[in-house]
Structures are given as C-alpha cells and as structure tokens.
C-alpha cells in the first residue's frame, strides 16, 4: 500500500535524496513516507512543477496582500521591507509527540519563573551553590532595579519562545530559551492563513489544531497580570515604532487583540502612574506588553539616551502601578550560560526530572571545559552567551584553519563570553526550492511560544518551524536567510 502511494508520481521528489546520518521528518530510514505525512505527500506527489510554482506564487501573494513584511536595515537607512520566505510543505507533529513537548515547555517556563523570582529575592539557589552567583550578577541582563519587586501574580516571563530541534537520535532538544521579547508569532498566524488560502483541501483530510486563538490567549494573559484592584485594565502594546524590524508583528498583535499600539512618546509618567496621551487628555495605562528592550525602557533608570522609552516608568513599576510583560531583568535567565543550568533549576524548584532535553554545553569559563573546547573545536558550535539572532556563531566543522586559529584567539581573550556545544544535527524536511522546481531537504528547527499569567498558562499548538534555506546551512534566523513553514499539530 505504502509503496503504491509513493510511486504515483515522484517527479517533484525525484531529486530528493535522503542523506545518511540526517533525520528526515518525512521519510524513514528506508526512504518510505512516515504515516503522519502520507496524505500530504500523496497530494504533493500528484502535482507537476508548474502546479507547485503556481502554489508557491499564490502563497507569496497572500503574504504581499496581508502586508507581512520585516525590515532589513543593513543596506540603507530607509530600510527595505521584505517578505519572510514561506514554504508551503507543512511540518507535521503527531499529537503524542506534541503532548510531551507541551508538558516539557510548561515545566521549563514554570521553573524559569521560580528561578527569576528567587534571584531577585532570597537568592536561595545561588546560596545553595546550584547556580554560580557570579554567573547571574555578571550577566548583562541582570537588573538591579528588579530586586525585591513583586510582579503581579509572581510572573516574570509571561511570553517565552523556546527553540527546539530534533536530533538524529529522534529526540527533541532545547537549543535556547528566549524570554526577553521573543518574536515571530505573527508569522505562525500568517503562515496558517496563507496555507488555508493556498491549499485549503489539505485541511479537509487532516484535523489540524488551531493557532488563531493566540491573540485572544495573549490578551487574557496580559489582563490577568493587571495591578491589584484594577478590574477592567487598560492594556497596550509598546513598540519602538515603525522603523523597528518587527513593527509588523507589533501592530498585528495590537490590532488582533483590539488594544492600542503605542510608542514611548505616547506615554508619560506622573506621580508614578503611567498615562497615554489621547486627544481627550491623559488616560491611565495599567498593563504594557512591551516590545522594547530593558535598556531602552526608561531613560531615567537605564540608558539615558533612549528615546524609545518612558522616563520614570520603572518607578511606576516598582510601586506596582503598572505591569510590564515581560518583566525587566528576565534576560538573566535566558543567557546562554544559564541555559546549561536549566535542568538543575527544574530539579531544584520542582523536584522533577526535566521533560525536555538540554544540549550538553561546555563553559569556556571553566578550565576543564575550556581545554576540551580548544581540543575539539572542529566538532563544536561555539557561540557568545549574550548575542541573539545567530550573530557571532562559529561552526567548527565548517571553519578553515585560519578561522579556527582566529576564533581560538577570540574566545581565549574573553572566556566568560563563550560556550560550546556538540554540533547537533538539525532534522531535515522537504522544502520547495523555487530555482530547481522540486523538493529538496533543508534543516529545520522549531520556535515554540509559551504564555504564563496569573493562574493561566498556554502553549501555542505547534509554533514556528524555521527553515535554513541555504543548502546544508544550520542557521534558520530570518535575519540570516531563513524561511518558515506552517506547523501542524494533529488532533
């Protein structure tokens, strides 16, 4: 039966070669289609290259029409608006697999929140020596202003974006936690929209769990952490403004939640309350979902040259007169050096074994690890602990001798700044390659979204599957030539 299906028309899959050692999401080791992909595969097999090109164009058009763009600022100051490349072959996650991920994500997020509460209050975990105190205090994102503050509901990381990969052993591994201002969720929703417009018939044969409820859930989380005694909180989304690369997402979220999109200059603080400037005068603001980084949020407390922030907002926050999502200082827990302690953090606070795997990590700071790193550089990925977006990442297997020597010097000069991990082989997934008119395999990962509020939690079903569109590349970030796929969790 399976053989029949696979032989209907494999022309668009003809060039498709599974590579030994890589885990393919769609095909098993015998080059047969996995059960949960059968129906989708069958349908795509029926299409000719022309059909697929049409589908591809149609999907692109859907993004143009929705206005889903991000801005790239390298070339000129005005910025160029680009479409985030989209691949129409959906990534499918069977329900059983997903259930475990979801439990694991909630466990992880809960532990991270308890950890943040602890390091800004009693610091028990540091005193017990489970996590080195120096590591936390020397983090760029450790925020003194948060000491002894009690955020509403005890929640610090309301929105977290955890990046997962599937390794060649078939297991998911957490690659990093993003708990400052994780972005990309708007792509999840617009990918689904594009998919429904383009290949609606595929949905008829699958029970795909919805993602469209994200804005509604986010709003509920936002409202749940309003300051005490506020019944009908005035909530806003704070954006750095339309020149920010993620502006589309900010306005999309504000619009779909039905709350105002504001900039720093729309807000002011008077007597430790936050107000927005409306045509009918000041209006009090209770909860701010802010997409402005910690450093920029209050020129009176942090960077004095920031024009994106609201002078005095930290005072209002300290008084409990306004809630911020995420809380300032959450970055102290998503530092890549802290990442390696997350399993220990989970055990410490919850007394449970971590459900999700961590990638083994070597700290250049520790002498033993540092020696190992220098000796095995070719087999490691080395990265700075405090950069995001894939900048400054060194992949040992791809480096020339000169590059190896140069990077050795760089990490030796600043050991605290670097960690190393074994090269994880990201799973591959058939992806439509326009230039070649056929499917080829490309590496993928998964950015998940987990929300935590006062007595409320939510995990977006699926998330953003990111694709490294360059052949053989492991870097999936949109700023560095990545694309994305619709991600289906089946009922």
């Amino acid at each position, binding site marked *: 039966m399976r053989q029949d299906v696979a032989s209907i028309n494999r022309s668009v899959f003809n060039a498709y070669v599974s590579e030994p050692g890589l885990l393919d999401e769609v095909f098993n080791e015998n080059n047969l289609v996995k059960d949960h992909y059968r129906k989708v595969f069958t349908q795509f097999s029926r299409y000719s290259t022309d059909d697929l090109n049409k589908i591809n164009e149609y999907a692109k058009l859907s993004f143009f029409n929705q206005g889903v763009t991000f801005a790239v600022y390298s070339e000129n100051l005005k910025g160029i608006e680009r479409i985030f490349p989209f691949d129409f072959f959906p990534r499918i996650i069977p329900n059983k697999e997903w259930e475990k991920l979801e439990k694991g994500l909630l466990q992880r997020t809960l532990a991270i929140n308890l950890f943040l509460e602890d390091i800004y209050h009693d610091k028990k975990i540091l005193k017990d020596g489970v996590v080195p105190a120096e590591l936390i205090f020397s983090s760029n994102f450790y925020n003194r202003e948060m000491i002894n503050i009690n955020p509403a509901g005890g929640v610090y990381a309301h929105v977290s974006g955890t990046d997962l990969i599937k390794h060649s052993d078939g297991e998911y591994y957490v690659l990093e936690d993003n708990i400052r201002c994780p972005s990309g969720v708007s792509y999840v929703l617009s990918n689904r929209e594009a998919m429904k417009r383009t290949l609606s018939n595929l949905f008829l044969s699958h029970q795909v769990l919805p993602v469209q409820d994200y804005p509604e859930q986010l709003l509920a989380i936002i409202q749940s952490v309003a300051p005490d005694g506020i019944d009908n909180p005035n909530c806003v989304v704070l954006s750095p403004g*339309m020149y920010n690369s993620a502006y589309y997402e900010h*306005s999309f979220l504000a619009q779909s939640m039905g709350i105002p*999109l504001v900039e720093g*200059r729309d807000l002011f603080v008077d007597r430790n309350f936050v107000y927005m*400037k*409306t045509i009918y005068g000041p209006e009090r603001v209770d909860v701010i979902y802010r997409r402005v980084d910690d450093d920029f949020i209050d020129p009176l407390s942090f960077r004095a040259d920031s024009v994106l922030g609201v002078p005095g907002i930290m005072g209002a926050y300290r008084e409990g007169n306004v809630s911020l999502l995420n809380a300032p200082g959450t970055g102290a827990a998503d530092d890549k050096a802290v990442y390696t302690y997350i399993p220990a953090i989970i055990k410490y606070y919850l007394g449970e074994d971590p459900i999700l795997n961590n990638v083994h990590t070597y700290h250049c700071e520790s002498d033993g690890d540092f020696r190992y790193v220098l000796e095995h550089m070719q087999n490691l990925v080395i990265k700075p602990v405090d950069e995001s977006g894939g900048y400054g990442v060194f992949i040992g297997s791809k480096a020339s001798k000169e590059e190896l020597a140069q990077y050795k010097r760089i990490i030796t000069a600043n050991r605290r700044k670097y960690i190393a991990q074994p090269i994880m082989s990201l799973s591959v997934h058939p992806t439509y390659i326009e230039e070649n008119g056929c499917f080829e395999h490309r590496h993928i990962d998964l950015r998940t979204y987990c929300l935590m509020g006062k007595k409320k939690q939510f995990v977006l079903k699926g998330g953003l599957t990111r694709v490294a569109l360059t052949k053989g590349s492991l870097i999936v970030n949109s700023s560095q030539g990545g694309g994305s796929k619709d991600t289906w969790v089946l009922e």
Partner: protein
Amino acid sequence: MLSRIANSLFWMGRYLERAEHTARYARVHYCSSLDAPLVQKKEFVMESSLNLSGLLYEYKKAHGTLEDEKVLYTITLQESNPLSIRACVNSARENARGARDSLSSELWESINRFYHYVNNYSEADLNDKGIYNFTDKVVENCAIVNGYVHKSLIHNEVWSFIHLGMHLERANQITRILIAKTNDMGKAATQKLGKVVENYQCVTLLKSAEAFDMSRTYYKAVPNYHDSLEFLILNNDFPRSICYNLTRMGRYLDRINHSKLQEKDSLEFTVGKICATLHYLTIQEIEGDVLIFLNNMLLSINKIGELIEKKYLNY
C-alpha cells in the same frame, strides 16, 4: 485615540491636499502660459508658481535664472525640497503608515500606490512627457484617495481628523493662490495691459482652484476679478471657497469636541467667529484692500492650525 495618531491623520490630510494644489497650480500656469497674451512671459508664470509654494527665494539662491525644466523639477520631484509634490506625497504616506491601524486597507493601499507612482517617476520622465502628464496623475491620485477617505472609513474621529487637515490646508492654499494672483494682477496693472490680461489671470486663478466651470455656471458671465474673488472667498456652497472650508472645519470640530462649554478664544470659538464674520461679509467690503484681508485670513488659518495642535495633537 492617541494624540500621535490624530496628528498623523491630520497631517496626512494636509499633505495630500498640499500635493494636489501644488500640482494643479503648476499645471494650470504652465499650460496657460503656452498661449498666453504677449506679455505673459513664461518666466513670469514660473515665478508665480515658485511664489505659491514659497520656493522663489531658495530657488534663486540655488539657480539664479529661471529655467523651465529646473523650475518644474524643483516644484514636482525634488526630494530635498520639502515643499515639492514628491516630498508632500512621501510625508502623506509616512503619516498614513504611522496611523495605518486606523485606516481601511483600501485607503492605505491607494496612498501606497500613489507613493510608488510618484517615486518611480524620474526627472527624465518629466522632461519627456511634460508637466501635464505628471500633475494630472497627481491630481487624479488625490481624487482616488479622497474617494476612499469618503467611502471606506467610519465617520468617526479618524475621519474627522483627516478632514480637518484637508480643509485647513485647502483654505490655506486657496488664500495663498488668491494672494499670488492678486500680486500678479497688481504687476500686470502697472504695465497697463487692460482687460485681456485681467481675464487671462482670472481664468488661471479659477482653474488653479478647479473653480472655472462652476463659477461660469454660477455667474453666467466671462470671469472678472470681482466675481472670482467673491466666488473663492465667500461662496457658501462651493467646496473650494474659504468660507465653505472653514464652515466644514467648524462642523468636524463640533463632532470631536466633547465639552459643551465654549470658552472665549478656544479653538471652537475662534473658528466659529471667523465663519460668522465671513457669512455676513460682502465682497465690496473686502475689495477695499484685498491683500490686507487675505493676509489676515492667512494668519487666522494658521492660528486655527495652532489651536488644533494645542488642543488635540500634542504628544
């Protein structure tokens, strides 16, 4: 509504209207100069166009002599000139972008298309196809955008602020056109050129305000200065008269205003007072010294703009 959004909407309206007026004025003047009575030299017309957009001084500093192509380029496409049509359209689009959530996608897209059209139009295109083609498209695009403003928005504050900007700018532009033409005629009069020139000037004046046809049907006569002034300043029903635009502004302000108390020298009071004066003014009273009247009018209009900003748009 956030004051910043209101500000963006207001200025979007103003810039759109400004682009339209600059385009029409340049077109009407340039085209009419082609077959103008003897003395209506092109240079004279060029100067008038630059004058209207307040560019004469800057232009002379940069170029010295008045040359067709340079003048036209300065007025239409020069990006570094903040008063050029392109700069106005860019500003309108920038403001629309800042308030995009409040606009219908039809309206946003029409502005966006307008923006792309103007920005893809090169200096070579301008020299090649001539001023008529470009300005015509600008006026047409403005009409399309206005259409979407009218029929794709809820008639709420968003709509009111766009209109406030448009009406304020239109009253402003009409006043400026009247001043520029009155000056032109003054110059012509000293040269004793007689009726032909007066008639010519009145036609360009009315056409610049898109008022030529309507004024003919209204007065049923060959245009003269007296009637043209009356039509453009005092007519109650013509959408391009100063009186009409200020009256409309009064209405939009009433829609927005929540407080029923009217304080002396408040925004609503000031607009109401100017409108009431215009309703009971005759053209004979104005004719005594037209320029003084018009310059005072310009000051009043600017004053209204300031009061709107102070009351609603500060952020």
